[in-house]
C-alpha cells in the first residue's frame, strides 16, 4: 500500500507512526481455513466412534455365526455312523469286527470306534430304563467312524463295500441332518447380514446428519470464503479434508475398540481351552475368533464412515453455497 497512513490517524490518537509494530508470529502455525477443535466437531467424532463400534460388533457377530455354522457343519460331516442290524443267524461281534476292519482300511478314515454291547445297552437305558434283559432284544450295534480332517473319503464306495461284505450294515452320513443344519446356519447368516446392513445404514444416516449438524456452525465461514472469491472446489476441498480427518478419528476410536474387544475375546478363549467353560464356548461359537476377514470388515467400516463423513461435508458445502446465491 502506497497510501499515507494519515487517513486513519489523527483525532482518535490511534496513530501507528513510530510505534513498535507487531509482526505476525512466524512460530505460530497458520490457522486452518476450517476451524478445528469445535464442540460440534468433537460431538461428530463421538457419534462416528459409537456407530463404528456398533457396526463393527455387528460385523464381528456375523463373522462368528458364519464360522460357528461352518464348524458345526464340518464336525457333523466328518462323523459317519454305521449301524449293524443283529444277524438272524450268526454272531453280531463277527459282523462288527468285519465292519471295523473294512472301515479302518478305507482311505480317509481317521478313527473307528465300535460301541460294545454294554455301551449300546447304556445308550438305550434313558429310553427303556435299566434292569431289563436286553440279551433277547435284537438291538443293532453302532460303529462311529471319524473322517480325517481335510480328507474326502468316498462314502458311496464305503457304503457299497459294506453292503457287499456285511449285509446287515447301514452307513448313515447324516446327510439329512447336515442339510437341515446348513439351512439353519444359512438362515442365521442371512439374518445376521440383514442386521449388519441395517446397522450400516443407520451408521451412514446418523454420521451424515451429525456431519450436517457440525457443518451448520461453519456456515459463516463458507459464506465469507464464497463472497471473497474462493471457488466452490477450494471451499469443498478444505471441508472435505477436515471432515475426513474427523471421520477417521472417530472410526479409529470405535473400530479400534471393537478390534481390541475381539482380540481380547480371542485371547481369552485361547486361555480357557480345555476348561468346562471353554469347551462350552467352543461348542457354541467355535474358536470365538472373527478371523482375518472380520478384522478386514472392521477396517473397511472405518474407511466407509470416514468416506461418508467427508462426502456429507462436501455435499453440505455445495448446498450451502447454492442457498447463498
Amino acid at each position, binding site marked *: 500500500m502506497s*497510501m499515507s497512513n494519515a487517513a486513519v490517524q489523527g483525532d482518535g490518537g490511534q496513530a501507528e507512526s513510530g510505534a513498535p509494530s*507487531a509482526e505476525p508470529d512466524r512460530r505460530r502455525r497458520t490457522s486452518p481455513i476450517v476451524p478445528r477443535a469445535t464442540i460440534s466437531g468433537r460431538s461428530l467424532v463421538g457419534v462416528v466412534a459409537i456407530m463404528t463400534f456398533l457396526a463393527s460388533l455387528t460385523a464381528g457377530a456375523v463373522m462368528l455365526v458364519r464360522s460357528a455354522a461352518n464348524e458345526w457343519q464340518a464336525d457333523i460331516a466328518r462323523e459317519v455312523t454305521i449301524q449293524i442290524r443283529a444277524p438272524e443267524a450268526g454272531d453280531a461281534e463277527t459282523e462288527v469286527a468285519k465292519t471295523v476292519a473294512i472301515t479302518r482300511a478305507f482311505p480317509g478314515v481317521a478313527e473307528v470306534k465300535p460301541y460294545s454291547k454294554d455301551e449300546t445297552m447304556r445308550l438305550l437305558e434313558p429310553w427303556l430304563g435299566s434292569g431289563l434283559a436286553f440279551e433277547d432284544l435284537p438291538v443293532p450295534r453302532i460303529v462311529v467312524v471319524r473322517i480325517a480332517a481335510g480328507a474326502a473319503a468316498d462314502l458311496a464306495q464305503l457304503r457299497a463295500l459294506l453292503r457287499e461284505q456285511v449285509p446287515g450294515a447301514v452307513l448313515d452320513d447324516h446327510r439329512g441332518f447336515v442339510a437341515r443344519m446348513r439351512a439353519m446356519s444359512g438362515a442365521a447368516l442371512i439374518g445376521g447380514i440383514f442386521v449388519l446392513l441395517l446397522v450400516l445404514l443407520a451408521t451412514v444416516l446418523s454420521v451424515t446428519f451429525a456431519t450436517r449438524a457440525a457443518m451448520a456452525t461453519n456456515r459463516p465461514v463458507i459464506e465469507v470464503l464464497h463472497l471473497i472469491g*474462493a471457488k466452490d472446489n477450494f471451499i469443498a476441498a478444505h471441508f472435505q479434508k477436515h471432515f475426513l480427518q474427523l471421520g477417521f478419528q472417530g472410526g479409529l476410536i470405535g473400530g479400534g475398540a471393537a478390534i481390541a474387544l475381539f482380540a481380547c475375546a480371542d485371547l481369552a478363549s485361547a486361555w480357557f481351552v480345555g476348561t468346562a467353560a471353554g469347551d462350552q464356548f467352543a461348542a457354541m461359537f467355535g474358536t470365538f475368533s472373527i478371523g482375518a476377514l472380520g478384522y478386514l470388515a472392521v477396517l473397511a467400516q472405518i474407511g466407509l464412515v470416514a468416506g461418508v463423513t467427508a462426502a456429507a461435508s462436501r455435499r453440505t458445502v455445495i448446498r450451502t453455497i447454492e442457498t447463498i446465491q
Partner: protein
Amino acid sequence: MVRFEHVGLRYGFGPEVLRDITFRIDARSFQFLTGPSGAGKTSLLRLLFLALRPTRGLVTIFGHDVATLSKDALSTLRRRIGIVFQDFRLLDHMTTFENVALPLRVIGQNEDSYRGEVVELLKWVGLGERISALPPVLSGGEKQRAAIARAVIARPQLLLADEPTGNVDPNLAQRLLRLFLELHKSGTSVVIATHDIALMDQFDARRLVLHEGRLHVYE
C-alpha cells in the same frame, strides 16, 4: 465498469424489492448509495457483489453479463470486488492478520509473498498492534477497520461497503470516510451504502437514492 439495465429483483413469489433499476458505475468513481430502511440497499449491494442474480434485466460487471457466467467465472469476478459487510464477518478462529490475508490465501498465494504487504496495510488502518489478536477481542472500530483492510488487500477495482460507519462513533466514521477517499484516489471505484446524511454531506459525491425499490441518481 458496472451497468444495470431495467433490473428487477424479487425473493421467491414475493413483491419486487427492486424495480426497473438502471444505472452505471464508472471506473475511478465514488458514490453513496442511500435510502430509507427497507428501500432495497442491501439487495442492490448483494446484486453488485454477485451474491444474487436479478429476476429480470441485465447486469454487466467488468464487461461480463453475469447471467451467462459459470460459478467459477463468478468467483473470479468476485476477486476484483472488495466487500465490507455491515456485520464485518471476520472469522473468529483466525487472527487479524489471517483475516485480512484471506483473499490472497484463497487465490493460492504463499504467506511469505504477502506478509509484508498485509502488515503494512494493517499499520495503515491503525491495527499494527493488533496483528495477532483474534476478532472476539477487537473493539467494534477495530473490527470495522480489519473488515475494510480485508476488502482492499487484493487491490479490488470496485469496493462496496454496507453501512461502514454504522457501528462507530462520529470521529471514527470521519476517519473511515477519509480512508475510502484515499482508496478512491488510488483508483478504486467506491460505493458506500449508508443512512448517515451527515457523513454524505462531508463529501460532494454522486448519490444513488433508493426509494420503494426504485433508484434515483443525483450526479
